[in-house]
């Protein structure tokens, strides 16, 4: 049941009516709806999820008792092992076999047939963050399991984020029964959901076959084609993933819950640090707060800072999937962060600091860093590191004239322009909204109609999926 599938739309409409009417029963309605939503997916292992939620909830309460603080570690280990078992067992076995020639599990054994439970990477991180937050005293443990279950399983963010924290969501759930959901909330939720639908159905899904065709060429790709593959994938993954987040936030608002933002026009970043403040924000802050700071952050000297950055980004890469390509992708981003940190020391020369303040410099860094990020996506999406290196080599030798004259280049330029437009739309949302309301209503109605028919036109069905579901 993916957000833009007809099944989900009907499911949500059926839920929304009693949800709006029966305010006191909202939490129970959500608890049941979340379980139903998760179980409806073929890879939705509800029992496993429920057991992990119950165990984590129990451990959190136990560790608040005197002399039981140590059970925190049981919670951490259990959650890490659960994720590691489902996500990394095959990876470990394959690598063990590759490096040592030793095959630990038979080809047809259970280990070889492990299926990744839907959303496990996301809910495990939420369990861990809850354990840590309670231990640190940042979050007060809720006494209600239903509330805890709704926090971790709330369907809009369950399977592809945003990765929420207890302190963000549980206080909102406390007030849910009294929350007045206005027509304005519904309208804004629908608006965000529609934006997400447009990004997913009209942009990402149309880019998907182009990306596939290019990457399928493998080593036959030319340098220019490699750039086109990387460019189109950049916009594909952004529009696919951010569309999911937009829809999730929109759905949350319609239910009186505000989820954290996950994207802020990431391709308009001028540095790797800025990029990670704009891309998959809730994962970045999770990595920052629980890994990078946990390792000491910048408090233990410069070398340790760089080491911590690398470790954090390598884990971020590995979180995306049990493949070396993801690890390398994370490593490259770690390296970029280290280089950026090093380059900041140049600011001690005032003229360099002054240049960096200039608008033109900002534009240049955005263009340059967009191309660097685009290149890193090659490691993210290529089937192997070898392939990514071949593409990288070819990209280095591509001639700019060929890139600009490639038939796909106008599409890429157009996608970048849409990205900028989205940034402006979000930045000036209030003003645009007020101006929009001054447009004569027949014209507004006609625009709604065109958008609706366009979505229906592109919503051909048969395949409803988001790329981040696999993580």
């Amino acid at each position, binding site marked *: 049941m993916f957000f833009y*599938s*007809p*099944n*989900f*739309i*009907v*499911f949500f409409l059926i839920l929304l009516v009693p949800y709006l009417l029966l305010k006191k029963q909202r939490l129970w309605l959500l608890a049941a709806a979340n379980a139903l939503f998760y179980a*409806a997916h073929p890879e939705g292992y509800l029992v496993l999820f429920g057991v992990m939620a119950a165990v984590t909830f129990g451990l959190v309460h136990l560790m608040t008792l005197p002399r039981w603080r140590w059970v925190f570690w049981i919670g951490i280990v259990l959650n890490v092992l659960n994720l590691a078992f489902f996500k990394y067992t095959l990876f470990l076995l394959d690598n063990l076999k590759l490096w040592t020639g030793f095959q630990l599990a038979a080809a047809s054994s259970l280990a070889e047939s492990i299926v990744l439970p839907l959303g496990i990477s996301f809910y495990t991180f939420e369990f861990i963050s809850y354990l840590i937050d309670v231990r640190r005293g940042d979050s007060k443990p809720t006494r209600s399991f239903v509330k805890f279950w709704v926090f971790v399983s709330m369907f809009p963010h369950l399977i592809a984020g945003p990765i929420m924290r207890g302190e963000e969501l549980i206080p909102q759930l406390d007030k849910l029964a009294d929350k007045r959901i*206005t*027509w*304005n*909330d519904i*309208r*804004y*939720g629908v*608006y965000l959901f529609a934006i997400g639908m447009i990004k997913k159905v009209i942009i990402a899904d149309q880019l998907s076959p182009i990306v596939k065709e290019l990457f399928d060429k493998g080593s036959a790709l030319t340098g220019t084609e490699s750039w086109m593959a990387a460019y189109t994938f950049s916009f594909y993954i952004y529009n696919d993933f951010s569309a999911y987040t937009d829809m999730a936030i929109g759905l949350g*608002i319609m239910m009186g819950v505000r989820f954290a933002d996950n994207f802020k026009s990431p391709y308009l970043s001028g540095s790797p640090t800025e990029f990670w403040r704009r891309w998959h924000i809730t994962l970045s802050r999770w990595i920052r707060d629980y890994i990078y700071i946990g390792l000491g952050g910048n408090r233990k000297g410069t070398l340790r800072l760089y080491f911590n950055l690398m470790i954090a980004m390598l884990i971020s890469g590995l979180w995306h999937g049990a493949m070396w390509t993801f690890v390398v992708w994370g490593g490259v981003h770690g390296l970029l962060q280290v280089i950026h940190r090093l380059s900041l020391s140049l600011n001690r020369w005032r003229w360099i600091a002054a240049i960096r303040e200039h608008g033109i410099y900002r534009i240049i860094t955005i263009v340059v860093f967009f191309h660097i990020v685009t290149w890193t996506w090659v490691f993210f999406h290529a089937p192997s590191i070898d392939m990514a290196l071949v593409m990288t080599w070819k990209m280095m030798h591509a001639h700019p004239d060929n890139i600009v004259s490639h038939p796909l280049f106008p599409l890429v330029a157009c996608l970048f322009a849409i990205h900028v437009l989205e940034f402006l739309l979000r930045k000036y*949302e*209030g003003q*645009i*909204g007020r101006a*929009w*309301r001054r447009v004569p*209503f*027949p014209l*507004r*109605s*006609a625009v*709604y*109609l065109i958008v*609706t*028919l366009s979505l*229906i*036109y592109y*919503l*051909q*069905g048969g395949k409803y999926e988001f790329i981040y579901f696999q993580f």
Partner: protein
Amino acid sequence: MNSSTSNSRSFRVRQWSWGLIGFLVLFAALEIAVFRNPDLYGIEYRSAVGQFAELDQSFRHADARRITTIILGDSQSKDALRPNLLAEAAGRDADSIFNFSISGGKAYDIYRTYMQYADRLTGLKEAIIVVNEHQINTYNVANDMKFRYFAGLRDRLRVLDAENYGELTLGWLSKAFDLRSVWSKMIQSYFKNTLPKRPVTEVWQPGGLRAETQNEPEGLTAAYAEARADGWFAQYNLTGLQVESLEALLDDLHDRGVRIVILQIPRSDLFEEAVIRKYPAEQQAYLDKIRSLAQQYGAEFAVMPNDSLSLKEHFRDANHVNPAGAAIVSREVARQWLS
């Protein structure tokens, strides 16, 4: 725009409401005037849904009161039982016979097509229902655009399941959504300039849909025959909507006092061999079902042999006759079953 700001809520609601109301009015108008209008789909009358517009054109030009014999079936009977050939062989007026057969027709589509015109067939005396194994297989009915075209809420509820409830419910609310694959293909065809050059008002012929006459590529090979058989018998299910539709059709005709003949018209040896080899039990179940229905509603049931037909001369593919084959089959049907 921010959900948390509400300086003048009533003003905002009023503003939003007009845009929303305008949208709903426009959408409803489009639904009624365009997406629920068969003439839209008639622009591409070769499509599964568009063919109904061509059939309607043909019927509109017929004198319904003079029609005494109807043929109901799918593309097999559309190609094989030509009203002019039947009339000639039976020594009748051609306008006394109308062929309601539709391409890809399944029992539900055939029944709903018949019901659309039944009231106007005041002189109806006999009906030839051409059946085959495919027509009463209920598998995947919800994804059939012809089903979507006809089905109301009750029929949708009969085939609703955990996989398709969203499609069927939203499709019931909006034909724009329900038949999106049909009209979106029409738009694509328009931009590719592959829509039919002549409108349906110019191409229709008397007595029902035009027969297909061109040979299918590779249509006369064993591989093609096997692929067709596989398609017909996929997850073979003789319960539910399709069989019930056939029964409803027979019931209605029987209640009207119409003489009913149920026929299985000839298919090529290639096809028969593929079916016998791979799906003998399913075929037997189908034959048993049709026999029992025929008995229940006082209909005659016959399986026509293909002795007088040769693959290369009389078939355009493994289970459709060509014009030469149609002449033979029509003559034989007229001789044996048309009074």
